[in-house]
């Protein structure tokens, strides 16, 4: 294991990606993820990799599509407005069943919005984002360590299922520095017989494509893809459960909101309130079963979000609306304080 170093979250993603065998990065400048691109521009030329600042987010994601088609590990990163621009390309990548990593270091919106941390791209990330029926595997780091670990995992899952993965971070986790133990460099060899690398005159040509003009064929492709999604939902749900066993009130939060919430849960416990925290690490697939199980014992749920309330829908669905679900939120780049979350917990405690 390597020594712990202090690193910005954005830089930890970059270094972890390189150690996961990613040698191709394409991006376009946008705050608050610029350190990631800067890191790549410094490192890639030294290790025989490719860093290219594209003319737009649209071009960047299409360069990603090209490299992904060749079977190599590839990524792009941006922040909310830039990720909106990438949606067309992401839909094509999903529709062509290619693995790739897209990083969204979220900032407040809509429109040009602001540059402070946000989680308001939750719907976009988990429900598709671009056109058509598809999902990304969406991982939500809550620490600099997870920025590194989940980057590595995202590449593996994307390759395993031929599904693009997204790291859904935010301005805080991107900008903050924490000690991180970087994963060891690994050499990855995943068999990708579908890749376009030249036929070598030894096989029939491979085609990377999402066009199926015959509706029955296109339907079949969608059905097959959703079979794979089912496998992902069965096998790849990840979450952290904190003091939930006897909890009356379960706070659900991911990323930076989960860290704030953990402080609030600790304080609530000190004050004699049985609060707990479920922190989804994958928000697609969402930890539905974990929440459904808790709804048998818990009396109420609180969704803590840096948005106007998006994940709360998934919480309600997961527990089939069998318990009250409250929203504790800030938006536009504001972050709820532990006190605000604590107030929300107390309010629910009084109501149940």
């Amino acid at each position, binding site marked *: 294991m390597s020594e712990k170093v202090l690193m910005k979250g954005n830089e930890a993603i970059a270094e972890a990606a390189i150690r996961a065998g990613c040698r*191709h990065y*394409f991006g376009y400048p946008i705050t608050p993820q610029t350190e990631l691109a800067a890191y790549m521009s410094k490192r890639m030329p030294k290790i025989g990799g*490719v860093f*290219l600042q*594209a*003319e*737009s987010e*649209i*071009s*960047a994601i*299409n*360069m*990603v*599509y*090209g*490299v*992904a*088609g*060749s079977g*190599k590990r*590839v990524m792009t990163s941006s922040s909310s407005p830039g990720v909106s621009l990438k949606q*067309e*390309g992401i839909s*094509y990548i999903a529709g*062509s069943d290619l693995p790739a990593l897209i990083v969204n270091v979220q900032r407040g919106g809509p429109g040009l919005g602001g540059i402070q941390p946000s989680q308001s791209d939750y719907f976009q990330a988990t429900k598709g984002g671009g056109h058509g029926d598809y999902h990304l595997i969406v991982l939500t780091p809550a620490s600099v360590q997870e920025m590194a670990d989940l980057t590595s995992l995202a590449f593996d899952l994307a390759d395993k299922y031929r599904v693009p993965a997204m790291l859904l971070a935010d301005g805080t986790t991107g900008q903050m520095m924490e000690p991180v133990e970087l994963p060891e460099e690994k050499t990855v060899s995943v068999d990708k017989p579908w890749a*376009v*690398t*030249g*036929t*070598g*005159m*030894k096989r029939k*040509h*491979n*085609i*990377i*494509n*999402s*066009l199926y003009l015959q509706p029955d064929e296109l339907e079949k492709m969608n059905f097959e893809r959703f079979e794979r999604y089912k496998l992902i939902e069965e096998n790849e749900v990840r979450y952290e459960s904190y003091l939930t066993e006897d909890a009356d009130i379960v706070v659900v939060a991911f990323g930076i909101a989960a860290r704030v919430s953990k402080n609030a849960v600790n304080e609530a416990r000190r004050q004699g309130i049985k609060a707990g925290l479920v922190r989804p690490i994958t928000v697609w697939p969402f930890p539905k079963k974990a929440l459904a199980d808790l709804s048998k014992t818990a009396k109420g749920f609180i969704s803590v979000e840096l948005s106007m309330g998006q994940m709360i829908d998934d919480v309600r669905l997961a527990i089939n609306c069998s318990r009250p679900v409250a929203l504790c939120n800030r938006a536009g780049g504001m972050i709820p304080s532990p006190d605000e979350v604590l107030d929300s917990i107390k309010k629910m405690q009084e109501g149940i």
Partner: protein
Amino acid sequence: MVVFEKPKSLTDAEFHYCPGCTHGIIHRLVAEAIDSLGIEGRTIGVAPVGCAVMAYNYFSCDMVEAAHGRAPAVATGLKRSMPENIIFTYQGDGDLASIGMAETVHAATRNENITIIFVNNAIYGMTGGQMAPTSLPGQVTQTSPYGRDVKVAGYPIRVCELLSGLEAPEFITRVAVNNVKNVKAAGKAIKKAFQNQIDGKGFSLVEVVSSCPTNWGMTPQKALQWVDEKMIPYYPLGVYRDKSAEVTE
């Protein structure tokens, strides 16, 4: 004995193109270039959105279907990850000169070592004949029913002239396929555009002035005549940039 056979780097799939369409000729010229350079096994083509959207079925090399206008970006990704492979895009005028202009210009200014075959028939064919960025002034289309009014819709874009204003690109040329002589010249230009890539020279674009009898509402013969009388005067044939020629001179 004269033997006429299909180039090896075309598949057996039947073209879906309209009667009299020149895409068939251009596909063949591309395939002949690939065959004669012996590069099929390491070539990857990028198909556009437009009439040639299903080009991936026609070329027997590996193929990628790009989103509308994004082929040069996709080709950039492919080439950067596999520098030893030969990457070409095959794009129409709406794809390359309208929605994909940024990708085109920036691939050119990076002197991206790729080959672009740009088919200019002055109309959106696949969607049924709308005005293209290269539709001529006064040209009647579905979305310019009174003729392209340059005061409203602006002027057609001359891609070769525009790109040759850039410092970087290696080779930019405009050819046509409206008669045997021009077809032969087009074949030579396309081959050179691939040879340049093999030699690591950089961005090579061949604009092929082409026809669309169906959407122009003409017979194939009349359409070829229209290429000669209307298109070529606005889009003069010739070499707009050839860096290696400049060096040898």
